């Protein structure tokens, strides 16, 4: 059982005032087995600076030695948008809820690109940081979640293009826009949930590395990114709603374009599934983490 007493920890940080008397209670108790808390929030808080540095590292490293650098954050969704607009919007005539197809699909891709990249980097993060796992202690949960955190910055950059597109197509923003941060938060939580779980599985089963790209590809087609949820026949729509991204992406568009009312029911399903996934993944991670250093 690990119980770092955080209050004592920070008060002892100054080396020059080393008190000769030791605390009565141990700062850390190392015992076999798992900690009692699935997620030890006090510990996460105590190590928060490390989390910041891990996100910062992922950001710094991502575009080093690339010619286009941070422009990649824009290029990826922008070019996908152009191609999708041509093939799905023009040639296939996929409907877009009366919103111009380019801006419609870009909004979906914006959130999707963030989610897909976050899950992929997060899923591979523990294996990629094997060296850290076996040489130093810190809350392991930071590794997969820091990978998601770095993706948020790309999302913010790519958002600029969305604003440009909305101005170009003269989309009028309403109060619905206030839902935007909530939806981005939900997507982040979902990415942390899925990424964390996959990253832990990946330590034990390297199959995940191969399954991931495949999973992401399929997930994209079962999410309303290139099409609106109304594109799916009524009787199958409940199935689509089981994909937590459905409610999130649909609400994301409503909040931007206000082309209709929010589908609160669908968003509620997404929220519940996202939170359930997050809780399950924290539990699964907790069950596996004590062995990471031994098998990674």
């Amino acid at each position: 059982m690990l119980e770092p007493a955080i209050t004592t920890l920070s008060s002892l940080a100054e080396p020059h005032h080393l008190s000769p008397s030791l605390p009565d209670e141990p700062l850390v108790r190392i015992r076999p087995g798992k900690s009692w808390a699935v997620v030890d929030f006090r510990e996460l808080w105590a190590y928060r600076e490390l989390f910041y540095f891990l996100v910062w590292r992922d950001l710094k490293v991502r575009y080093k030695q690339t010619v286009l650098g941070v422009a990649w954050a824009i290029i990826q969704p922008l070019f996908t948008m152009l191609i999708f607009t041509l093939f799905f919007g023009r040639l296939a005539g996929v409907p877009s809820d009366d919103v111009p197809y380019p801006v419609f699909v870009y909004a979906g891709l914006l959130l999707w690109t963030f989610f897909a990249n976050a899950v992929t980097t997060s899923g591979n993060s523990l294996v990629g940081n094997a060296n850290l796992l076996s040489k130093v202690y810190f809350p392991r949960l930071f590794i997969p979640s820091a990978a998601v955190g770095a993706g948020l910055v790309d999302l913010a950059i790519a958002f600029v293009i969305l604003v440009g597109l909305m101005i170009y197509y003269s989309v009028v923003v309403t109060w619905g826009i206030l839902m935007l941060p909530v939806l981005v938060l939900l997507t982040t939580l979902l990415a942390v949930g899925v990424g964390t779980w996959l990253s832990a599985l990946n330590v034990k089963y390297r199959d995940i590395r191969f399954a991931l790209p495949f999973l992401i590809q399929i997930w994209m087609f079962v999410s309303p990114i290139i099409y609106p949820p109304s594109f799916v026949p009524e009787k199958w729509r409940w199935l689509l709603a089981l994909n937590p991204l459905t409610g999130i992406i649909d609400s994301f568009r409503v909040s931007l374009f206000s082309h209709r009312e929010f589908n609160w029911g669908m968003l509620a399903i997404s929220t519940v599934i996202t939170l359930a996934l997050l809780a399950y993944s924290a539990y699964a991670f907790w069950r596996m983490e004590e062995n990471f250093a031994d098998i990674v």
Partner: protein
Amino acid sequence: MKPIIQAEDLSKQYQIGAREEGYSTLRENIVGAVKAPLKRLRRGERSADELIWALKEVSFKVEPGEVVGIIGRNGAGKSTLLKILSRITKPTTGGVDLYGRVGSLLEVGTGFHPELTGRENIYLNGAILGMKRAEIERNFDDIVAFAEVEKFLDTPVKRFSSGMYVRLAFAVAAHLEPEVLIVDEVLAVGDANFQKKCLGKMGEVAKEGRTVLFVSHNMIAVKSLCGRAMLLEGGRLTHEGSVDEVVDVYLTAGTDMAKTGIIPDDAPRLGTREAKFRAVQLTDVAGRIVSQLYLGQPFRVELTFDVLKEISGAVFEVDIATLDGAPVTFTSSLDGGNPPVRLPKGRHTITLEIDVVLMPRQYTFLVALGHLDGTTIDWIERVLDFTVLRVAQSGDDSYRWTSVRGYVRPRARWHAPGLFPTALVTNAETIPEDVTVGGNGSGVY
């Protein structure tokens, strides 16, 4: 006094199978689940063999301000102990109470990213080692000065020389300010000057009253830094006490194998085990078994081994090392242009004659057999200890100094017209002295 570290009954069990295979794939697991009951039936008792205790019932206390050395051979459990104390892995049984903030340095440069600059890595590595941002900022200039990398602060560390890299990495770690510092073998890297500087820094840390646990194979460093030492053997804590005592026990107490050269089947070996060494003997040139050599005496090494499966191209290697593990020299069966040998099944004995003048000390042999492509077939360290005496067979050549510096004694002849008795030999007919010594080889032992 109240201990700052209190470890009680620590044990750690590893599954060898899991360790060798590392990770598994889903398919293996599914197939494994189906086969498991069958497998267990077939294996019977053997499944217990796959579990090894890397650490077994280790209890100790460390008081604040102590500098404790942890010594032991490879595989004795030192690293496992440090990993438990650093909370990287959990014990299987037992527990530790830590009454101070622990900083551990199990590797120099953990988390260094090659693409990031020196400056960026100082921050990142500091944070990973558990420093607060403010702490890093306060120590930044000291770290840079200690590492001597001022000019390269904004260069990615992948362009650093390995020396610079290590210096920077150690500098960050050296400025950690925990109450307990755990250090694993970090002095094995870097040049001699820098090692000295690191040792100095560690000494300073100890003087500040911080507690240090120090693992090293470098007995000189252990002796100069630590007041107390613990010796781990086969996962157990076998000796504990003043550093001089414990280091002495470690250096002199060889295993039965190291005393006799008879290798038990379960000796710690590495390799594919297509062949196994059974015995290593040291003999004089007449073939008599000895354990001590006169200074300058040529000797032979006899290797006995069983080949369990025919090997097409085998290469032998014999290393001489000091008891604390420093390599002195080695020879391979490829030396002198020999081809790799084909080894048919069965028992074989090979003899090699070695002519090297070693300084008077205790040494040990390491033997290895491998394929030409580098795969190890069998490898055993500290297989047989031997001593080189200060006395030479002809008294004039004996070692007359109190301290022994280095490992190899050159055959030197000093010449100067009128100053030294012997003249410079230019005539090829003159027979050098050492051949006569080696030739009769029938001295009294």
